[in-house]
């Protein structure tokens, strides 16, 4: 049941209603083998279309299956039922056209920041000079130029996540998946990085799907906010965020922001109390 749909979001409208969705899920489900041998229904059925240029954020309580949904969209996990298409083609495996930013940066501690950022180039055999130039440009864009030769453990949490962003963007992916990207950071750094990501996303013009348990973060970044129910996770609301871009530190003070936030909180907490 969709609680509210304000039509397609702004980003989608710009690419036209007929454009092929980046991701299209239909009736997607996931069950895991449980401890007692009986299958545990973790997710779905989920129907979801992500259109080119959209930033879709999904919020849900812990354990609702949102991480599973992201892994299914990434192709890192096999679905138990339903269909999934990437750019109109069914898929089972990950694609290097999809960049992933993991919750816990996942930088290799034995490599420098620059080597970490260049990892996709090594694996995909990108031309070294082009990749090098692009890595340095991304590091400059995120204010990490002076730390290219440092090991990740010498960086702050926020800087590590910026480096992970650079790595995810190195191979120029068309679609970005964000798995609670700021979940491990303190509140101030989270907000700072959210705004920075919003700015970068605006400049780079990519499609993105982010899962988070932070409602503010979801509204601040998203064109749409999807709300997920507790396990088995289903999308119970699809809320268009009709707030102007670029979003800034003042966006959270916008009356519309507060209204959307209240709507989402009601969806989550009223559902829980029943």
């Amino acid at each position: 049941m969709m609680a509210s749909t304000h039509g397609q979001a702004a980003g989608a409208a710009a690419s036209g209603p007929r454009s092929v969705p980046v991701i299209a899920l239909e009736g997607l489900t996931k069950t895991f083998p449980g401890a007692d041998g009986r299958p545990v229904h973790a997710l779905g059925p989920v129907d979801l279309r992500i259109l080119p240029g959209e930033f879709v954020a999904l919020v849900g309580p812990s354990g609702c299956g949102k991480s599973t949904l992201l892994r299914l969209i990434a192709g890192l996990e096999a679905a138990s039922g339903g269909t999934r298409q990437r750019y109109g083609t069914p898929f089972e495996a990950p694609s290097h056209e999809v960049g992933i930013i993991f919750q816990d940066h996942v930088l290799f501690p034995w490599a420098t920041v620059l080597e970490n950022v260049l990892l996709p180039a090594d694996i995909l055999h990108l031309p070294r000079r082009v990749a090098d130039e692009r890595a340095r440009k991304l590091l400059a864009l995120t204010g990490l130029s002076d730390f290219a030769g440092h090991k990740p453990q010498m960086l702050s949490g926020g800087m590590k996540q910026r480096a992970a962003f650079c790595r995810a963007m190195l191979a120029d992916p068309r679609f970005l998946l964000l798995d609670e990207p700021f979940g491990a950071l303190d509140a101030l750094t989270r907000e700072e990085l959210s705004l920075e990501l919003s700015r970068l996303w605006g400049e780079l013009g990519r499609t993105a799907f982010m899962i988070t348990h932070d409602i503010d973060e979801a509204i601040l970044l998203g064109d749409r906010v999807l709300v997920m129910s507790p396990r088995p996770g289903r999308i119970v609301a699809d809320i268009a965020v009709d707030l102007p871009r670029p979003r800034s530190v003042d966006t959270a003070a916008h009356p519309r922001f507060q209204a959307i936030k209240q709507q989402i909180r009601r969806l989550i907490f009223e559902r829980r109390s029943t």
Partner: protein
Amino acid sequence: MNARHAGRLLTPAVYAVCLIAWEGLVHGFAIPSWLLPAPSQIMAAALAWGPELAANAFVTLRETLAGFLLALALSLPLAGLIAFNALARRSLYPLLLGLQSVPKVALAPLMTVWFGFSEWPKILIVVLVCFFPILVNVVAGLDSVPSAMLDLMRSLGAPQHMVLRRLRIPAALPALFTGCKVAITFAVIGAVIAEFVSAQSGLGYLIMITTSQSQTPVAFAAILVLTGISVALFYAIEFLEKRFVTWKV
């Protein structure tokens, strides 16, 4: 004198007190040197027997290092096989872990039966005692790669050899060094025990001969040299570890 200087001097001071007490006890109770030599007598014996000690230390060191390196060369590919092949893990690993329970030094006389009086029985005992700690630690290291890192490699479509080279091997390095540090200590013990069983040279042989001839100060000097070798090898590996493993897990 401040606390930091005091802390630094504490260890040598403890050693000095122990040595002086030892020296005093031996002289005070007139203990004969064949029963317990005083530190001064051990030092005198070490100087007098310098060339013999050095020549035999060289033999023991050679056996230790040859056995250790051979064990390394054997255990690394096996660890890789066990870590990446489910069949090898289910068939080989229980077998190897079972063999680990065999007291390896008890095999030393058999080694002599099989391989004669050359240096090979000693080297093989060293291989046996070094092999398991390295293998078990490297398998654990290859297994311990965080799943998110594997997801990252998979999301980039990295082929297996790339996952191995860029992720699993570096991730297993700390465990490899842990295994090597355990192994190198065992290696010296293994070499000496093998020399006890049958040898014409080496520090273990020297200890056996001099003890049976009541030249106890020389035996003590040989034990001192052995301890030095053991400590030196341990710190050599730790030095390499500090150079190659610059991160904490």
